[in-house]
């Protein structure tokens, strides 16, 4: 009897134990995986102006379709939902930052929280808390809080490639300038600039005025500055031949600067007596009104030569075409490549690309200025070599699947 009871007890215990053993793995098999959020970190976003926080946490097998990560931020009291990201997204390896400033870790999630968007009264240096919550159906898990005080960084390391290029250009710039003092430079002839003498001579012979437009750019634009340099040389020649010069302006500041330049040009050739204050005059700051007004003047006064050098937009063709119908010699130059075709077809000579910036130095014949043309040549040589080498490397990298090299080459030539 006792044996029977003992046997029954042992059997019952074994049965219960086997049932428990059989049941546990089954329940574990059906439960969704849960991520490990112990590696959650919040740090100041590097190389920014202190308005972003970088959140990272490890990639886990729980990052399945349908699961999401909810990012929460707090300034001390309430939690604000900063973002909700699909669990399989926002990887550190997907962040588009250069290799020297960012580690593309495929085992980490990365999220950049923009603080002013989350907290309107945000100030760099204040402390904030962050946490991330994993949600997959009914399963959810929160990380521990991480505190961070974002601060501004002094140097944007992402732009170090640009900075290195700038320093190189400055070094080459000073080298060529110092070199120019000792030696002269050969400069290829630029037909458009050589034709200035012809145009002014023609105007003198015909007794007709010369129109010079600096375009519709402001004084802070490089093509306008380049145009005023050319105006100085044109004005000198005009003053020498005692021809009439008219410079209509779109921008009053450009007009003021041009007045000074033209007056200086007249002074340099000892013809200050011929200088009139109304050589430079303001027309309007409206694009088509400016075009209409200058077109009217060109049409009525039939100038012998027209110069359209500077920043031009849609008015380029309006001006150049009217000038062409009056039979004037026309010389144009702009940095707007979309307007160049109009100038090509309507003008006798067009300064293409960097010729516009070289014109001042070319005309003035000053060694210091001319030497800087060499920097442009070095720059073009560098671009040509970089384009050729970059193309070969990217091609080779694509064919032979050298991903690291592709990554390095692409980042080196990219602006951030």
């Amino acid at each position: 009897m006792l044996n029977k009871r003992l046997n029954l007890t042992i059997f019952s215990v074994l049965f219960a134990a086997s049932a428990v053993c059989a049941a546990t793995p089954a329940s574990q098999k059906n439960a969704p995986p849960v991520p490990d959020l112990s590696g959650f970190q919040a740090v100041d976003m590097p190389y920014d102006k202190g308005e972003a926080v970088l959140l990272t946490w490890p990639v886990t097998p729980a990052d399945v379709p349908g699961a999401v990560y909810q990012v929460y931020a707090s300034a001390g009291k309430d939690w604000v939902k900063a973002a909700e990201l699909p669990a399989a997204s926002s990887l550190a390896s997907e962040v588009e930052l250069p290799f020297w400033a960012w580690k593309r870790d495929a085992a980490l999630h990365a999220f950049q929280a923009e603080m002013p968007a989350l907290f309107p009264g945000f100030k760099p240096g204040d402390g904030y808390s962050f946490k991330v919550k994993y949600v997959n159906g009914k399963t959810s898990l929160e990380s521990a809080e991480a505190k961070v005080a974002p601060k501004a960084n002094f140097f944007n390391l992402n732009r170090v490639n640009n900075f290195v290029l700038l320093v190189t250009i400055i070094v080459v710039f000073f080298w060529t300038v110092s070199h120019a003092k000792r030696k002269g430079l050969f400069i290829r002839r630029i037909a458009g600039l050589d034709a200035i003498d012809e145009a002014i001579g023609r105007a003198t012979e015909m007794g007709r005025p010369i129109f010079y437009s600096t375009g519709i750019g402001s004084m802070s634009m490089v093509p306008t500055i380049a145009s005023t340099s050319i105006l100085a040389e044109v004005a000198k020649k005009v003053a020498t031949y005692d021809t009439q010069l008219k410079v209509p302006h779109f921008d009053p500041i450009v007009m003021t600067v041009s007045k000074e330049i033209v007056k200086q040009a007249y002074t340099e050739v000892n013809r200050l007596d011929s200088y009139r204050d109304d050589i430079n005059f303001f027309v309007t700051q409206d694009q088509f009104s400016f075009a209409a007004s200058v077109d009217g003047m060109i049409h009525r006064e039939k100038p012998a030569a027209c110069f359209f050098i500077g920043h031009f937009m849609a008015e380029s063709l309006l001006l150049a075409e009217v000038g062409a119908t009056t039979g004037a010699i026309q010389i144009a130059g702009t940095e707007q490549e979309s307007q160049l075709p109009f100038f090509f077809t309507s003008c006798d000579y067009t300064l293409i690309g960097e010729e516009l910036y070289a014109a001042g130095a070319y005309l003035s014949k000053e060694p210091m200025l001319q030497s800087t043309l060499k920097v442009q040549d070095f720059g073009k040589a560098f671009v040509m070599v970089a384009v050729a080498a970059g193309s070969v490397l990217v091609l080779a990298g694509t064919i032979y699947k050298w991903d690291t090299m592709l990554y390095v080459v692409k980042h080196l030539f990219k602006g951030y």
Partner: protein
Amino acid sequence: MILIKKYIPLALCFLFGVLTLGSYYVPTAASENYMEAMNQWENIVAGFAFLLGLFGLFYSHYNKITRKVDGWGYSLFVYIGFFMMVIPAILSEGKIMEGTTLTSIGWGYRFIYNALASTMFSVLAFYIVSTAYRAFRIKSAQAAVLFVAALIVILGKVPLGQMLWDTTLGWTGTQVSGIVQWLMDVPVVAGRRGIMMGLAIGGIVTGLKIIFGIERQYMGRD
């Protein structure tokens, strides 16, 4: 005098040039505030300069009228146009709309200014035709290439051209739109980028010339 006319402007140009250049690499709030302040100053100076330009314009046209120079009648329109816009603007307190109705300045803006500006812009279409005629005259091998490329682009951009292509050259199996896309994506982009790179380099060098005081013509020479 030379200190005020030459050295101080050059020093200011260098200082603000370097600061502006440096602000591109320094992502602090101070750097951002500096750029904002510079833009505000530019606007302030431009506002005063506009007044200067306006007075200069009036003075110049006043002289033309009083001296009765050729075409002095046009100068009258400067004053007429100016007062036609400024007086209604003052009367309607600068508002374009009053509820759902146009104010006098709104009317002038829409029915005078906009009409005139649109007319000028539409003139472009006619000028493009005459320019295209000149551009497409085949005088050399390069001009012939330009003409052929332009013709293909024109054909590819209009339905009639596409229909003509399909009728006459459809047997080749090539779509004119594909050729146009290739022309726009490859030779055109290559040419444009070449010009843009040259311009960028020229722009950088000109900027450095100004910052370091080598290019000084914009401030008049001593």
